């Protein structure tokens, strides 16, 4: 059918796709800046390479598909994909990790499906998973923060050399994330009580003073950004709350069963990409269910998978895998979890009014 006659409604909310994307970008900006400052020039280089490839990939695909380039490029979605992907990469990864990831995210993760709104998987997470599987070494190169002027920080030229030429002395810089560290040490049959103290402090973790990917480090800034988006009603509480609560409950439960084997809820909550995932990745409208109940299921599913992968899986960090897996389940959730229609039962039959319910509204029959 074609759309020509103006049709009701003739009023619209001020929301628009570019505005939504813009708000999310704004919300993630503080954590991004903080991460870049913590990890210095190489991080900035990688960040720029990643988002530029995303934008380029988007433009090329749109041109090839014969669609309008400008409006779609300007809707902010490709930029956001680039930022989220960059945030989930090791900050000193070589430039080609960002380039391949960016291209993969946009071309395979989004445009192959038909562009914005059509993709099944979160493009940034799909790319991260692909990178993790293909380049495990580069993708797990974590380092301790080296803020500028701290002596250990590389200068601008040194930064370029790191991003485009490789890290000169890998062993000198590499550290491990808390989760990775816990996994390795547990593998060596040590107990958490011995592992954690020297390596983990909830305070430093929340502030981001810890090894990790670019944007996974400061949970506080991520949390503030996420809460701000909630307050601006960009998304609702259902996915993040379900996700975080599930991880929290599982972690607390297992930790209570065996504190020497299972890390406690605080460690889980404040490490890895959990906060970023809960507020910025799993809330991606395109790849999550559209009903509230569906979103609760989706969030809880992500939470379970994150915990399972972190605790028993082959990778120390599970957010990307969990989100991608639940993305795959989204069409199914949306098919089966529908709201109840007004005046109908859950099964779709007309819902009769029970005779006893047919009584005058409470308190009527007199003025106040």
């Amino acid at each position, binding site marked *: *059918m074609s*759309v020509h*006659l*103006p*049709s*009701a*409604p*003739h*009023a*619209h*909310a001020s*929301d*628009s*796709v570019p*505005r*939504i994307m813009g708000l999310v970008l704004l919300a993630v900006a503080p954590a991004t800046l903080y991460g870049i400052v913590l990890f210095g020039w190489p991080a900035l280089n990688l960040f720029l390479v990643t988002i530029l490839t995303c934008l380029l990939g988007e433009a090329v695909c749109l041109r090839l598909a014969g669609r309008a380039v400008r*409006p779609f490029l300007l*809707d902010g979605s490709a930029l956001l994909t680039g930022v989220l992907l960059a945030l989930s990469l090791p900050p000193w990864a070589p430039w080609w990790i960002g380039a391949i990831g960016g291209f993969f995210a946009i071309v395979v993760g989004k445009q192959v499906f038909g*562009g*914005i*709104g*059509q993709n099944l998987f979160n493009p940034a997470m799909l790319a991260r998973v692909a990178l993790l599987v293909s380049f495990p070494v580069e993708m797990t190169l974590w380092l301790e923060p080296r803020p500028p002027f701290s002596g250990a920080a590389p200068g601008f030229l040194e930064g370029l050399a790191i991003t485009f030429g490789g890290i000169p002395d890998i062993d000198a810089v590499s550290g491990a994330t808390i989760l990775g560290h816990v996994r390795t040490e547990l593998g060596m049959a040590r107990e958490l009580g011995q592992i954690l103290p020297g390596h983990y402090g909830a305070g430093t973790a929340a502030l981001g003073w810890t090894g990790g990917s670019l944007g996974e480090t400061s949970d506080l800034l991520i949390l503030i950004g996420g809460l701000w988006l909630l307050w601006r009603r960009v998304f*609702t509480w259902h996915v993040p709350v379900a996700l975080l609560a599930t991880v929290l409950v599982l972690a607390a439960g297992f930790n209570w069963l065996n504190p020497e084997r299972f890390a406690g809820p605080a460690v889980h909550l404040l490490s890895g990409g959990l906060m970023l995932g809960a507020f910025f990745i799993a809330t991606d*409208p*395109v*790849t*999550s*269910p*559209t*009903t*509230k109940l569906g*979103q609760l299921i989706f969030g809880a599913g992500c939470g379970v998978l994150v915990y399972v992968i972190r605790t028993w899986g082959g990778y120390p960090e599970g957010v990307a895998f969990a989100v991608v897996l639940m993305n795959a389940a989204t069409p199914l959730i*949306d098919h089966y979890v*529908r*709201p*109840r*229609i*007004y*005046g*109908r039962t859950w099964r779709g*039959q*007309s*819902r*009769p*009014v029970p005779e006893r*319910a*047919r*009584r*005058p*509204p*409470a*308190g*009527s*029959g*007199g*003025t*106040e």
Partner: protein
Amino acid sequence: MKLFNFWGGVHPAGQKHLSADQPIQVLPMPARLHVPLQQHTGRSAVPVVKVGQIVRKGELLGRAQGGVSASVHAPTSGVVAAIGDFAAPHVSGLPLPTITLESDGEDLWLEREPPPDPFTLEPEDIAARIGEAGIVGMGGANFPAALKLGKARQAKVHTLAVNGAECEPYMTCDDRLMRERAEQIVDGVRLMLHALQAPNAVIAIEDNKPEAVARMKAACQSERQMRVAMVPSRYPAGSAKQLIQILTGLETPAGGRGTDTGVLVHNVGTAYAVHRALRHAHPLISRIVTVTGGAVARPQNLEAPIGALVEDLLAFCGGVAETPARLLMGGPMMGQPLPGTQVPIVKGTNGILALTAAEARLEATPSPCIRCGRCVEACPMGLMPLEMSKRARHDDLDGALDFGLIDCISCGSCAYACPSRIPLVQYFEYAKGALETRQRAEQKAKETRRLLEQRQARLAREERAKAEAAARRRAEKRQAKAKAGAAA
């Protein structure tokens, strides 16, 4: 009183300040009125006057015919100038049979007997008089009021919900009516309760109209049967199904009637018209219309005769300050675009809205759905508009039906909320139209099949009869032969 919540809904900018403080002004009688014979749901009225005939104000022009219909009356005194097609207030601009009346400037009422005290009348008689006055639902439903009352009495409703919610943005006609004519409305409600034989009435008003609430409360202070309920200002609180949900917590069953919940919803304007009809023997020949929008020079609330042209109303309001980007009959959420200003207002016209381009946000063009779920959240009926529109767009009617197309009340909340500006309601209207066409075609095919089967059955019967007759003849012949043989 205890109120319940309704699902979904949106908060469009009210914009009622444009006209809310303008007292009702009487529109000077235009020289010509164009009274369509069909202003209601059901069958068109049949004209009972001839061209050239002189009529008085309130005289019958067209009589209701058939089960569902409503009469139309002369809004002023004058001469019937024409009976024929005239542009109707509908987006198509298709003409409808219309009686054109030339005003004689006298505005003389038809002499009538003073009406008897309505409370001495039987409930049926009240309903009959409401029907004779040509009263239809004035909130835009346009269903003949007398029929609705009669059916509701049979269904034994216990509560009359008087709808003064006026949840459409910009509209203030009900607000003004409640502020200025509260006693008359209350009287109308009393009469309707008598016609219904129902014990309670609740006057529901959105809490963004504190003055109307105060006036109505004062007016029904001594009425034991009535009370005023302040309902939350959230669109579409004034839709009948949602209002019932707010007041009772019950849902109108799918495919059923609102009265199944024991509640009948009528608009405040209808209550006012009932008062006019029963106390003054005045048929429904005028109504309050809000003329507003950013493009109108002086937004106002006008008491205008039915059949006045939109042009007349706009002119009285100082004309349009700039060319409106949208000219609507009704509010921005559910109003219909008008083909021009040369169309008459009808009994169900609550407003004329002239929007500027900025107000209508014309600059935005649709973009792909990002599955954000805002439409699902906004839908008061619990539907998934994104899924329905996806199917409607691909002519997958059964798919759209499966997602609840027939439960859609076309309220526009989903399309209002959509950040991609997808014209969701337009897809639904299109699909509903296609569905109707399909059902008609199926009906026709069934009828054809029935006729065909009938014919085949008849042919088969005839064939059989012929065969039997032939068999009989053969048998007779054989018998005759046998007889002859035996005789030989």
